[in-house]
């Protein structure tokens, strides 16, 4: 493992930034990182694209970006900063910079279609953005149709004359004009303000922005850090893209204790087993599909990963079969199934795998989601939001400090999802997940969805969004999207049935593909003169699934 030169911790003795005002203690999500800068300045904070950044170095880069934006951004706009960067040092520094200037961050993903990225940017109203070199290739296209004056900081590029010439309405800053990190000063951050704004699939055809506040995410981090006794010796995997909220756990739990985050490149992601051993990973976190993938490739052989001490899975149903294989491959690791939608801040229930007890507690080959985090209040309800009898299945509602602040600029959607059930004073989030708590004191079991949300290889997808986009682009009303082929965790892709004579009009498939992230793009279109309907007059999804299974 490469060594890092021992350098004095930033903030020690002569640097008075921290001692002058201990306000960073109130800096919400970035608090742990800032403390670790002080305590572990010379230790590695991030390994990414062949580069190792010590805490002190990452702090200097982030503080410089934060000061640059604070000093150069003109005009109003919400306290949000976009980070258009992917698996690069700039991505990590950009996120910290947003937080260190007192803003929430809005991650954008260059693997998504430009049109979607632009829609997210416009909806967020961000007036400042940090951009890495790879994402910058999409910048000209992204700027088409952005009217508000924006500030772009490009720390991987020397100067920005060409960009300024092409886009005189915006301000671009390269390395030459970056403000020194020494100009950074802690900012007061209200624990009720937004720490990050993440867009998730929306059933009406438009992605919705989930606002997660500092208080919620601090609650998650404090609990998880303590539960798994994370230390500065730990080395965390970073499998999740920043547009997926589970990435927040990788970064900020690691930084809370001075540990190192190891970020694999796109190319390395295809070989997770080698990555674990080459990077001496001790804390693993992924969607179950990644482990299923490893199992299929024979990468879960007995004792393959003796160095792992914590393995966490979240994001989709966890198959018992997979955990059994994982526990043989990582014999020294505790294994936990975490559960929680973005609206409940990363995860809000957990279940520790026990090889003796767990198989009998599982239902239909799926590991239980377990018990709520401290102070989180689960409630299992029927359609009228009344609590069901013990042992009965129902929709899971959840209250407590990890409730998101709501949906960005969407009070109607917020009111529909964050509710006060009859006779309750507290607000609960409606997860849309069907669960059951066995009579007695068994762990919560995940049974499925109450609506048409699905997990496509760990990605949260509203089939309604796919249907809405296909409807708009095709002009055809009768559209049903299905997740297929199905697995115990979710599904592999999306297929669409249209009530029309085929074939599709030219260009329609491309237009749909240009609006959706790759995992939501319908793989195939099937044309039927009449879509089957069930007794309630609704499209019969099961009949269509049966049709797919019977193909070719």
């Amino acid at each position, binding site marked *: 493992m490469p060594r890092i030169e021992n350098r004095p911790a930033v903030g020690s003795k002569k640097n008075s930034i921290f001692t002058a005002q201990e306000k960073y203690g109130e800096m919400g999500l970035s608090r742990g990182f800032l403390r670790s800068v002080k305590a572990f300045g010379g230790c590695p904070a991030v390994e990414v694209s062949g580069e190792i950044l010590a805490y002190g170095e990452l702090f200097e880069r982030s503080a410089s970006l934060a000061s640059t934006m604070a000093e150069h951004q003109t005009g109003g706009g919400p306290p949000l900063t976009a980070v258009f960067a992917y698996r690069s040092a700039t991505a990590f520094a950009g996120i910290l910079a947003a937080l260190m200037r007192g803003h929430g961050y809005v991650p954008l993903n260059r693997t998504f279609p430009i049109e979607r990225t632009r829609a997210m940017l416009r909806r967020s109203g961000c007036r400042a953005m940090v951009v890495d070199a790879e994402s910058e290739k999409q910048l000209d296209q992204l700027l088409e149709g952005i009217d508000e004056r924006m500030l772009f900081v490009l720390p991987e590029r020397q100067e920005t004359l060409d960009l300024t010439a092409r886009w005189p309405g915006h301000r671009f800053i390269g390395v030459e004009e970056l403000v020194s990190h020494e100009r950074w000063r802690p900012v007061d951050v209200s624990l009720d303000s937004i720490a990050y704004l993440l867009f998730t699939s929306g059933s009406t055809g438009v992605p919705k922005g989930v606002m997660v506040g500092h208080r919620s995410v601090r609650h998650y981090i404090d609990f998880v850090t303590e539960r798994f006794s994370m230390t500065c010796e730990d080395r965390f995997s970073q499998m999740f893209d920043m547009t997926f909220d589970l990435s927040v756990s990788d970064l900020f739990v690691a930084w809370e204790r001075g540990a190192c985050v190891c970020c694999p490149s796109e190319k390395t992601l295809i070989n997770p087993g080698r990555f674990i051993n080459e990077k001496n990973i001790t804390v693993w976190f992924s969607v179950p*599909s990644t482990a*299923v993938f490893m199992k299929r*490739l024979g990468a879960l052989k007995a004792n393959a990963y003796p160095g792992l001490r914590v393995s966490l899975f979240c994001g989709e149903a966890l198959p018992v079969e997979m955990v059994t294989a994982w526990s043989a491959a990582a014999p020294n690791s505790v294994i936990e199934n975490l559960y929680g939608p973005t609206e409940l801040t990363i995860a809000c229930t957990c279940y520790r795998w026990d090889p003796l007890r767990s198989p009998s507690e599982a239902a239909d080959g799926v590991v239980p989601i377990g018990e709520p985090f401290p102070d989180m209040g689960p409630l299992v309800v029927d359609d009228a939001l009344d609590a069901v009898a013990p042992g009965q299945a129902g929709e899971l509602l959840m209250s407590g400090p990890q409730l998101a602040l709501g949906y960005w600029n969407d009070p109607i959607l917020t009111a529909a999802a964050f509710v006060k059930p009859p006779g309750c004073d507290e607000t609960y989030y409606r997860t849309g997940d069907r669960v059951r708590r066995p009579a007695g004191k068994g762990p919560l079991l995940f049974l499925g969805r109450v609506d048409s949300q699905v997990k496509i290889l760990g990605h949260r997808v509203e089939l309604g969004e796919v249907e809405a986009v296909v409807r708009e682009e095709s002009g055809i009303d009768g559209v049903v999207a299905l997740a297929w082929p199905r697995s115990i965790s979710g599904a592999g892709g999306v297929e669409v049935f249209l009530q029309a004579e085929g074939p599709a009009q030219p260009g329609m498939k491309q237009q*749909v*593909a240009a609006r959706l992230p*790759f*995992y939501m793009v319908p793989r*195939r279109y099937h044309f039927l003169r009449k879509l089957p309907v069930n007794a309630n007059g609704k499209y019969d999804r099961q009949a269509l699934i049966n049709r797919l299974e019977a193909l070719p």
Partner: protein
Amino acid sequence: MTQLTAKDVRSFLLEYFSSMIAMNGLDPAAINEDFDFLRAGMIDSLGVLEMISVVEQHFKIAVDFERMDPSELTLLGKFSHFVARNANSREPLP
């Protein structure tokens, strides 16, 4: 069943990903063996699972991928040949 060929697998994958291929402005006829679904942005690393499961479902086969180098799995030619060589037919799924 008749012997599955790499060509069968290849044409199925090109048809299955046809809307993505069209969006990228590619001509399916001009796509060669070295075409990389991952590099083209049509799938992410987990998309290999999707490729595996659609091929298994479509051809009603089971394939043992244990001996395959993960970094070659996203290549059209390598994947197709591997599937054709290692396909074991099985009963259609219930």
